[in-house]
């Protein structure tokens, strides 16, 4: 017998013919992936455009060719080295301080940037009026961040006081090189001329000032050669520098993480859609059993039958992906607006063809992969089904091809995740997380179906029993809806809960007797007067905490140079470059516990100095009891021995330190002090802040109210972006819901029509349908909320170490909204069974 070929042209023709009466349904299946593809294409296009803009605007991000920054004043040698680099140069000093608005006595902590020179050399200070960016440099004038202006109702021409000096507001600062909306939330920026800094009295010994130089060369310079010259001396001294190229890399790197996160969220939406596709195709294939059996009877091979439907899936997968890509390109126009507070550069929404192509290929591949799960069952459909319908779905466990498909799916998700996160371990963790979430949701759906079936309410009225029974009958939508809607709900609710946990955690501090205000940058001479000022206002002030800044020069024999050369050393790279803020005292405080070694509270001159380290810091840098550490205390090298390790409760608003010295060593070192106090009300806080700013203009104040408002602001900005992305999952869930309802419409329709034929009234069919969808919506929403509560509780308990109390009202709103939408979609799609004559529907739907 001569073997026949596959006959591809006939396969295509049959696929086309077979799809005739199903095209709208097929499109509906694939609509589930449209949203996911749209999200991916939008994010990927944004990523492309962002990369291009960062490349184009890298110089504007830095504002110069080279930026040098140091936490201490530069030494003579360092200045000579900087001088030798040539070019034009601007100088800046950055530090936190308080601003005072005399018009309404408002005060707030800000970042002061005292600027001298023509910086920025690339781009500009975006100000209102535009000329203020240059004109403020002449005299005692300031540029004040626009949010700060709004917050205190200030106008251009008003006065502000910083330190001891009053400045005229020359303009509103809308943007500076490399600044995003979020960074402005934390510490709003105020520019003042560098020449006016001494008048403010804020530059004193021990002040926490960041000293910066910006260099611009008018002729092209070999930047690699420049970096080579400064690398060693700067690195050893902990001086940082940035070039246009490194700034480009840093910005790209930080945004790669954001883009990756958003891509993964979009990918979850796509996966949800794919599950919808697989579920829909399964029902579709079940309906096609007789057609496939007839074809097999007439001589079509199993492979031919399989290919007929595979071709349909490829075709609709392509169309769906194309629509998704177009939609994604449109959505991308909105992304720069959504992300404006996070983006460091203005991004134009240009069409990205590689992203579109990638989206289409991805859509087709993933639609086919997921559709393969039900499609491989076609091979098992016997021609005997023409004589009697005896099709039994092949057991997943027994079909090796299904296992192969599962493996391919897992691999696909791993590969996609790997391309996003560029780490195999993280990719596997992500994939496993997704699989586990899906399995948990699916398991909960199965459990609920089992519970409903097991404890079926036989005594209820017929209408209720009918509605409830639909949950576990053949072709039910319970599993797919709980997975898709549940996951979307879980995403949204978890985000909401986390926001609540973070805010709650900060607010909690306000409820007990813990301090809620920190005053820092207190000079030694100001200590007593400040404490008595606090006491005069009735505020608790038990004393100040001294802080000495220092750098670490060596741990045992390891120096920055050896750490750089030996990559096997288990130490954090910044262990030597960071500035250590250290205190000294003779006893542990309530937030600390001794974990190892012996606490030394006081040493005599000439004795070995035993310091105490926070245990996590010691562990991360492989430091043990008895190790030696050489600290450079503002020019004086001080050898110490690690005497003890402490655990520290960082959650408490207290002055906690990585390194604590015993008393008797640092008393004479340049230092500043911190005072913790508790203000009973907003008014008391404002009154005290005004008094401090007036009397001690160099002292910075941060209170819990400010922390809460900053946190709220940041959460709002980041939360909006995440909500925007989670909306794709919700939208996908809704489309899957619509698709599921329409796909099973025929089965439901037959039942409903039969009920109506037997005399059921429209109202009764309406109640049965509404009840079924209400239970489905309620189960999906409840499962999602349940998962969100569990995951938020775990996060609160183990990560944020706080208590978690879910807010009831928003949860109730989410729950009923989802129930309402589910019932509305269910009823809308079943309306023909309610209003039209039964025979007409039966005839039409066959």
């Amino acid at each position: 017998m001569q073997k026949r070929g596959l006959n591809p042209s006939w396969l295509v023709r049959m696929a086309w013919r077979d799809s005739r009466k199903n095209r709208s349904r097929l499109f509906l299946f694939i609509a589930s992936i449209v949203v996911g593809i749209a999200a991916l294409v939008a994010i990927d296009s944004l990523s492309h455009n962002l990369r291009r803009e960062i490349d184009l605007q890298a110089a504007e991000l830095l504002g110069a060719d080279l930026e040098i920054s140091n936490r201490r004043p530069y030494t003579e040698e360092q200045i000579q080295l900087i001088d030798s680099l040539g070019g034009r140069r601007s100088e800046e000093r950055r530090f936190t301080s308080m601003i005072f608005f005399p018009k309404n006595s408002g005060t707030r902590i800000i970042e002061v940037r005292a600027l001298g020179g023509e910086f920025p050399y690339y781009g500009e200070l975006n100000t209102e009026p535009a000329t203020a960016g240059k004109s403020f440099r002449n005299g005692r004038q300031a540029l004040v961040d626009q949010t700060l202006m709004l917050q205190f109702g200030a106008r251009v021409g008003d006065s502000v006081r910083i330190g001891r000096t009053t400045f005229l507001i020359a303009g509103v600062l809308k943007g500076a090189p490399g600044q995003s909306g979020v960074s402005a939330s934390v510490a709003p920026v105020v520019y003042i001329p560098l020449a006016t800094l001494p008048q403010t009295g804020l530059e004193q010994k021990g002040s926490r000032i960041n000293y910066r130089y910006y260099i611009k060369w008018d002729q092209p310079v070999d930047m690699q050669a420049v970096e080579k010259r400064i690398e060693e001396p700067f690195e050893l001294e902990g001086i940082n520098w940035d070039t246009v190229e490194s700034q480009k890399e840093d910005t790209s790197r930080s945004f790669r993480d954001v883009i990756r996160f958003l891509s993964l969220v979009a990918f979850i939406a796509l996966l949800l859609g794919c599950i919808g596709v697989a579920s829909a195709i399964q029902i579709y294939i079940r309906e096609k059993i007789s057609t496939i059996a007839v074809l097999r009877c007439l001589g079509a091979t199993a492979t031919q039958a399989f290919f007929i439907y595979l071709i349909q899936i490829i075709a609709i997968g392509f169309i769906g992906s194309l629509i998704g890509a177009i939609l994604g390109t449109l959505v991308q126009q909105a992304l720069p607006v959504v992300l404006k507070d996070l983006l460091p550069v203005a991004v134009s929404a240009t069409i990205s063809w590689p992203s579109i192509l990638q989206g289409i290929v991805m859509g087709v591949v993933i639609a086919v992969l997921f559709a393969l799960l039900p499609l491989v069952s076609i091979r098992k459909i016997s021609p005997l089904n023409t004589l009697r319908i005896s099709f039994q779905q092949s057991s997943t466990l027994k079909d090796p091809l299904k296992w192969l498909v599962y493996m391919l799916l897992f691999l696909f998700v791993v590969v996609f995740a790997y391309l996003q996160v560029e780490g195999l371990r993280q990719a596997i963790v992500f994939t496993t997380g997704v699989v586990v979430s899906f399995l948990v949701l699916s398991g909960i759906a199965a459990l609920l179906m089992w519970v409903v079936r097991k404890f079926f309410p036989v005594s209820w009225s017929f209408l209720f029993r009918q509605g409830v029974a639909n949950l576990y009958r053949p072709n039910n939508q319970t599993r797919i809806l709980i997975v898709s809607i549940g996951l979307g709900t879980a995403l949204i609710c978890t985000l909401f809960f986390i926001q609540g946990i973070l805010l709650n955690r900060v607010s909690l501090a306000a409820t007990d007797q813990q301090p809620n205000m920190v005053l820092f940058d207190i000079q030694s001479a100001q200590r007593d007067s400040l404490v008595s000022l606090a006491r005069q206002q009735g505020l608790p002030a038990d004393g100040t905490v001294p802080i000495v800044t220092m750098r670490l020069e060596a741990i045992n024999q390891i120096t920055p140079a050896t750490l750089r050369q030996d990559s096997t050393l288990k130490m954090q790279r910044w262990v030597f470059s960071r500035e250590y803020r250290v205190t000294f005292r003779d006893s542990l405080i309530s937030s600390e516990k001794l974990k190892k070694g012996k606490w030394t509270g006081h040493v005599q001159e000439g004795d070995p100095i035993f310091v105490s380290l926070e245990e996590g810091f010691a562990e991360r840098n492989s430091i043990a009891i008895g190790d030696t550490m050489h600290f450079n205390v503002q020019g004086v090298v001080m050898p110490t021995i690690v005497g003890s390790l402490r655990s520290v409760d960082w959650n408490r608003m207290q002055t906690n330190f990585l390194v604590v010295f015993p008393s008797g060593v640092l008393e004479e070192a340049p230092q500043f002090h911190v005072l913790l106090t508790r203000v009973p009300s907003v008014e008391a806080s404002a009154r005290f802040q005004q008094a401090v700013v007036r009397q001690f203009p160099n002292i910075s104040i941060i209170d819990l109210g400010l922390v809460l408002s900053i946190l709220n602001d940041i959460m709002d900005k980041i939360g909006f972006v995440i909500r925007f992305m989670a909306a794709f999952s919700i939208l996908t869930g809704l489309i899957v819901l619509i698709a599921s309802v329409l796909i099973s419409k025929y089965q439901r329709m037959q039942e409903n029509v039969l009920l109506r034929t037997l005399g059921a009234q429209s109202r009764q069919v309406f109640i049965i349908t509404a009840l079924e969808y209400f239970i489905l919506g309620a189960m999906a929403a409840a499962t999602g909320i349940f998962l969100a509560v569990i995951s938020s509780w775990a996060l609160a308990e183990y990560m944020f170490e706080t208590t978690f109390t879910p807010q009831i009202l928003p949860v109730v709103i989410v729950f009923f909204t989802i129930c309402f939408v589910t019932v509305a979609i269910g009823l809308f799609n079943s309306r023909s069974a309610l209003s039209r004559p039964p025979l007409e529907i039966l005839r039409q739907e066959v």
Partner: protein
Amino acid sequence: MASILSVQNVRKTYQSGDRTLPVLDNINLSVEPGSTLAIVGPSGSGKTTLLGLCAGLDRATSGTIALHNIVLDNLNENQRAQVRNEHVGFIFQNFQLIPTLTALENVMVPLELRGEKNIKPIAMELLDKVGLAERGHHYPTQLSGGEQQRVSLARAFSNNPKILFADEPTGNLDAETSDKIVAMLFELNRERGTTLVLVTHDMELASKTGRIVRIKGGKIISDEPVMTPIP
């Protein structure tokens, strides 16, 4: 004359949990080319199972079935599909037209599966023969039950089968329509020299064939020629 269908010692069982259910036991049958045969018996006697085995839709548990001298036992599913396509025609009780294909396309499918060209005139001629030339572009849902079975007849003969298997071909039709369909079936059968094997409960229809095989409890209880087939 060599038989077109040979069934030797065929046994068919199904597994139901731990139990083995016998459906057919020791079936022996031989059908000559061009002849007509009816398999009759009560519900559940195994007649449809026998039809399925003879047509190569299923495998026997033991025994040998040869169709047009091709032994089906050792063929895989794809090879049996090819045998069906080249030598077998089918008529079903519930017509089994593909709902998404027009009447004409339904008739064309067996020929298309063979990869034949210019098949539309052949399919049209067959539709004309069953009186549906004007309805070629209608979908099955737009046709009455009788019309659907006529399309099914046209499809069954489209690949010039050596043997035609019919499973209760009039089971879903009224008496008047049944008569017309039966008349067409036998006419086409005579005209094309096709062998006809039909399964039915209807003794009047069975008596129109040349031979009646009675099955009960999975066994042939009689195999007798019909002396004077009713025309």
